[in-house]
């Protein structure tokens, strides 16, 4: 996907968001029952922001269309490693959205750090020795970080961990 295409998709999303904000501000309770000044209605600024965003989105669409026509657009999400990105995002989301709150914090953290370190430091060569070293290193780091953060936040900052 080229940047110009990504910009056009974003412009559509932002335009919709802007209109939704404008409508949300317009239909928002004007608190007449409290007899507030009509110029201080809660929906005033959301309406202005919605209008501004819709306008900017329209301008973005126009400039993206021009860039696409002149084929000057650079690639969107190019030059990086998709596998590393997807793995990182996946493992982080599983930890933050599922493990934390479901498992005790210590075990969730130990599991996450160990898995992350193991996946990204796993040796490519088939020898057993470096693989054992990588596994032990990852597990050691996982337990150390889980213990360290638990003690720091629970005992020193008196935070009730999830």
């Amino acid at each position, binding site marked *: 996907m080229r940047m110009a295409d990504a910009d056009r998709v974003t412009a559509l999303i932002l335009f919709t968001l802007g209109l939704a904000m404008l409508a949300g501000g317009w239909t928002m309770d004007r608190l007449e029952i409290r007899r507030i000044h009509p110029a201080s209605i*809660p929906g005033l600024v959301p309406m202005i922001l919605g209008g501004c965003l819709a306008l900017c989105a329209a301008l*973005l669409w126009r400039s993206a269309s021009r860039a696409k026509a002149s084929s000057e657009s650079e690639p969107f999400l190019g030059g990086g490693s998709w596998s590393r990105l997807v*793995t990182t995002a996946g493992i982080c989301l599983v930890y933050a959205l599922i493990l934390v709150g479901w498992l005790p914090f210590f075990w969730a953290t130990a599991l*996450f750090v160990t898995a992350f370190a193991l996946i990204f430091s796993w040796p490519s060569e088939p020898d057993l020795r470096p693989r054992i070293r990588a596994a032990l290193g990852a597990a050691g780091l996982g337990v150390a970080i889980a213990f360290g953060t638990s003690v720091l936040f629970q005992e020193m900052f*008196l935070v009730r961990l999830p």
Partner: protein
Amino acid sequence: MSALIDLGGAFGELLTPTMLFHAAWATLLGILIGSLPGLTATMGVALMTTLTYSFDSATAILILICTYVGAIYGGSRSAILLNIPGTPASAATSLDGYPLAKAGRVGYAMGLATAGSALGTLVGILMLVMIAPPLAEAALNFGSFEFFWLAVFGIVISGQLTAGTSPLKGYIAGILGLMVAMIGSEGIHAHVRFAFEIPDLYGGIALIPAMVGAFGFSEILTAMWNKRGELAARKDKSDRTIPRVIEVWRFKFTIARSGVIGTLVGIIPGVGEDIGAWASYAAARRSSRKPEEFGRGSHEGLIAAETGNSAVVPGSLIPAITLAVPGSASSAVLIAALFIHGIRPGPLIMIEQPHFVSLISGMLIIATLFMAFYGLTLTRLFVQVLRVPYAYLMPVVFVLCVIGTYALSQRIFDIWVMVGFGVIGFLLRQMKYPMAPLVLGIILGDLLDKSLRRGLTLSDGDLTPFFTRPVSAAFVLLIALSILLNFALVRRILTFPFRRLIRQRDV
């Protein structure tokens, strides 16, 4: 004279073994955070905010200031060694630092960068002491009309200057930030907006989870997405890491000019250290006797970039303290931290806490001294730190992102906010949307909303005072100019007299 007495009093409070201990480790940690590509100063300050909830206010702010100063300086380490700026602020540093390192003069380049950073911060501190008190006094005369335009000016100028390719994307990021600030109970009638009957949204989106997501999680994703660089030189052929006084003295005008430029850039809302470095670098190149050396290991270029980005730190604190409008993304986190610790930045700061500017200046001086000490003595350690694999570093950072945001209110919801902002932040970055206006929008949204509606209530719905009061009119003019200058036709018209003058001179 009274400023000096206040500064002496501040040092009396700060020069205790406990405070010096905290300053020492926080500065070192800041340098380490800044030196690691993928960890930025804003991320460091945001994470440290979550780690200093339980400290008293002076200690917590000292730790955050030391982390901030250290991290901005630390970015130069990887810029020089890897040609990858540790923080965006050090992008200009890599232009001349890396060629010097490749030529085997790593130690000397680091020493020069250290001298530039230290002197830049000192110039900024001097201007902070001189500008902050009168600015706070002037801001006491600001009413709702002026504060409304100040907020708009912040968003427009930040969007304009931080967007790489198109200011439009900067404006959009700013508007999105303002829209995020509209969520939850509003500040005049306590009416809940856009909460969709989700109780966690009634209080709005908290700044710290949003910033940890936008600058923490999104940095992790960006770092894992990108490839790492190679160390420039394994062996250092520098004869010394501490630059001779005479060598630094040669660049006295460059240092003074870059320090002033950096501080002034810092004062502009939401612009930040990278722009300070680039502006100083460009000015140094224009006035240099050897402009052809810039980009090829110029000592002057290196010192200008480092002086410029470091001077932004005290500069960005000037509007942050006196107007509660952050000069950079990191100072936005500092504002949030000040509120957490019961300090109310804004025009009343000089009345409520008249010695606060001196206290901050004292903290900055201590941070600068520690920074210079570490920078000149721990060169080898920084080289080793850069070899820490991401596989071990990034999960630790993410754990701190998660637990740090949770610790603020002990709500799982804040972790979701952090994750959401991280993913959106990553995508927006890939599409070249700057993050600084987004954050500035979240901070200034409440001020903009309340000031507009209060102003309209005071004027009974009349818009005239928004345009006729002198300060308001000046802001309107600046905002209009900033936006109109994006159009080639307006630029041509405005620069026409100057082009004519130049033509006449050339003839």
